[in-house]
């Protein structure tokens, strides 16, 4: 009796799994796909594909890179945000680097950084932010200086060694993200000469000290321009980042800046109902509008 009860229990379970698989795993999604063929839904269900002259060029929901084959920004196009996947929908990813990811792993000078295997270097999030800010600043002709960044675009971070471990007087200071022979961003720290970072040396005993520097609180390069998105496919940039790029795009296209600004306004989506989400500019749609002009 007990055995039969046990078996019938599992028989019911097997049947239940099969029934629900047919019902919810086939019936439900297939019916939904059918509904999605209705006019008005179909384009969206297929990925909101945007076409130019009958040729698909992207999706209005998915960001893309506006860079040339070498990865350099194409001046006549507004640039998207940094992306951890390089805008590849087949490998979406976020950086997952934390708020105190500030110490780089320096590359082996004996290896070629451009080879397939690389030189083993790894940038901390802080250096990524600093490097992007410097690059955007140079592209747009503004200062890319930021707090905690060196003028050469890496994180301004020291490993400070004390005479008694964590306290006492400073015995040594190393700018860990500036590989030798770079000149450290500051010559001395509490009277001790600051060294550049050397590959392979263990600085683990030193205390990590990010140095804020004297950059202003807000940079002309907005936050979304120096941080990677969560989706790695962010179709939007902030209105501030679009405004920053307007002058360069206008110059590259020999258009008056006012016209480009007007197009930005046209392609800015505000908050839904005035309070849901954040305003943003759809980069692909804006660039398409420029191309049509």
């Amino acid at each position, binding site marked *: 009796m007990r055995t039969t009860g046990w078996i019938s229990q599992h028989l019911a379970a097997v049947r239940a799994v099969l029934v629900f698989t047919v019902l919810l795993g086939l019936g439900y999604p297939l019916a939904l796909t059918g509904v999605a063929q209705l006019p008005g839904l179909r384009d969206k269900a297929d990925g909101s594909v945007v076409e130019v002259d009958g040729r698909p060029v992207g999706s209005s929901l998915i960001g893309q890179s506006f860079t040339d084959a070498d990865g350099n920004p194409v001046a006549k196009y507004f640039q998207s945000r940094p992306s951890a996947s390089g805008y590849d929908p087949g490998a979406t990813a976020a950086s997952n680097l934390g708020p105190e990811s500030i110490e780089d792993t320096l590359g082996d000078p004996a290896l070629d950084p451009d080879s397939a295997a690389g030189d083993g270097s790894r940038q901390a999030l802080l250096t990524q*932010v600093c490097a992007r800010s410097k690059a955007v600043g140079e592209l747009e002709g503004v200062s890319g200086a930021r707090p905690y960044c060196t003028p050469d675009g890496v994180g301004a971070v020291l490993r400070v060694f004390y005479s008694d471990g964590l306290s006492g007087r400073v015995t040594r200071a190393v700018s860990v993200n500036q590989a030798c022979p770079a000149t450290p961003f500051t010559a001395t720290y509490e009277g001790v000469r600051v060294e550049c970072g050397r590959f392979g040396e263990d600085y683990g005993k030193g205390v990590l000290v990010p140095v804020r520097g004297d950059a202003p609180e807000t940079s002309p390069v907005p936050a979304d321009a120096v941080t990677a998105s969560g989706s790695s496919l962010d179709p939007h940039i902030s209105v501030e980042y679009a405004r920053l790029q307007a002058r360069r795009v206008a110059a590259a296209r020999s258009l008056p800046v006012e016209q480009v600004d007007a197009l930005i306004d046209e392609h800015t*989506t505000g908050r839904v109902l005035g*309070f849901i989400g954040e305003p*943003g500019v759809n980069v692909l749609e804006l660039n398409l509008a420029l191309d049509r002009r």
Partner: protein
Amino acid sequence: MTTATAGVLFILSLLAALAVAYRYLGDHMFRVVAAEHHGRVERGIYRVLGVDPHAEQSWGGYARSVLAFSLISILFLYAFLRLQDVVFKVPDFAATIDERVFPHLAWNTAVSFVTNTNWQAYSGESTMTHLVQMAGLAVQNFVSAAVGIAVAVALVRGFARRRTDRLGNFWVDLTRITLRILLPIAVVGAVLLIAGGVVQSLGDGTAVTTLTGAEQHLTGGPVAGQEVIKELGTNGGGFYNVNSAHPFENPTAWTNWLEIFLILCIPFALPRVFGRMVGDNRQGYAILAVMATIAIASIALTNVFELGGAGTVPQAAGAAMEGKDVRFGLSDSATFAAATTLTSTGAVNSFHDSYTALGGMMPIVNMMLGEVAPGGVGSGLYGMLILAVLTVFVAGLMVGRTPEYVGKKIGAREIKFASLYFLITPTLVLIGVAAAMATGNWRTQLNVGPHGFSEVVYAFTSAANNNGSAFAGITVNTPWWDTATGLAMLLGRFLPIVFVLGLAGSLAGQSPVPASAGTLPTHKPLFIGMVVGVVVILVALTFLPALALGPLAEGL
């Protein structure tokens, strides 16, 4: 309007909608689980299953059915994952199944979806075919949610019934909850999501040449149908690696609102079912008040920390925008993060690993609270009722009276079940973290220092509480991690369920005691405050050391 003002209005509008859901969705769910009538389709299903819908089960029978159904589900899903390339291999991955879905990953994923965790050690778009996503993973999104609600309902029957050993019929509860609650909402929600831009197709998508001449392959897939139940059933397993941050899963600011609403609506409406079944709506309101108090505090704190943007990198960048998309911004991302971890969802629209130190601590704390405010579908209600039982016990100790809750005495047997329930997840979390640290498996972390430790703590907290979100920098698709988190998910789901059903059986057998002058009223603010206090104190005592070494060390 500033981001902060808009964020506050966003939260208030959600609360208003949830208040409506409490009343109407709650009443609907009550009618479903209390109904006498069986629909035609339902009778057909019972016939195929070979079960008598009128035969109610004891707590042991109910538990055996839950376990049998879940065991078969795991075996079926494991086989499906390993054999997914046999039919309808779209998209046509270059990597073979043995290169993509290792046995340890298939085990982990099968357990993960059956336990309503949806921890994902894989990246959907490069691992799973459309067929296994919709007929394997998404099916479990429905039924694992229904199992949770069924167990909660069985516990409430234990409170509501008198002198019986019958708690209902699992197969009937499972079928009804799936067909009458989850499926209708899912269909409506899915159509809304498609209208917002979520994809729903069976094809492989579209290859395009971008404006600058690069190739980009836009993915296709039956996403909308899975997306909606992923939120509604507090599952969280995304079609894509980046989950609800992906524009094809969560395309606009308003779909983001809708997805948060879907996550919260059933867990917040279930106390209404409790109130109605025990015949006193005030008891439902009291449970709701406890949940809402904790939830609002948590959502507010997460927003404050993220908008504050403390920490070296957020200060350098000017805002904590790493891992967040522009259309959601700081505030709506933070609200999503709180909602997904206050429940057992684990979907993410932004990456918690890149949050500020304290902003990233909030999801961990939410999960450590036991996911009871409002918690996963069903599991939130039964978790909170366990805490209410513990609270009347503590209160009873203070005044020296036998504790009672909604007319049932809380004796030695009941308090044993409740205590065992409470001890499971802390045990799993702390042992798991200790094992990872002792065996060197923590080295798969991405970040270093306290943040790296937080990744390990987050992983086991998420697995043992069946959440599924992560500080995703850590690599967890290794034999050790897949096995260990799989065990944590399995034990963290089914041991509590057995204890809850045991408690239900023990309560159902009692005759109710009439309220007397010595009875602690369990619908008054005093009691609500006490439950909140018990929740916070129990968690603080258990987990403060772990938090001190991780996010607190990083953020303070």
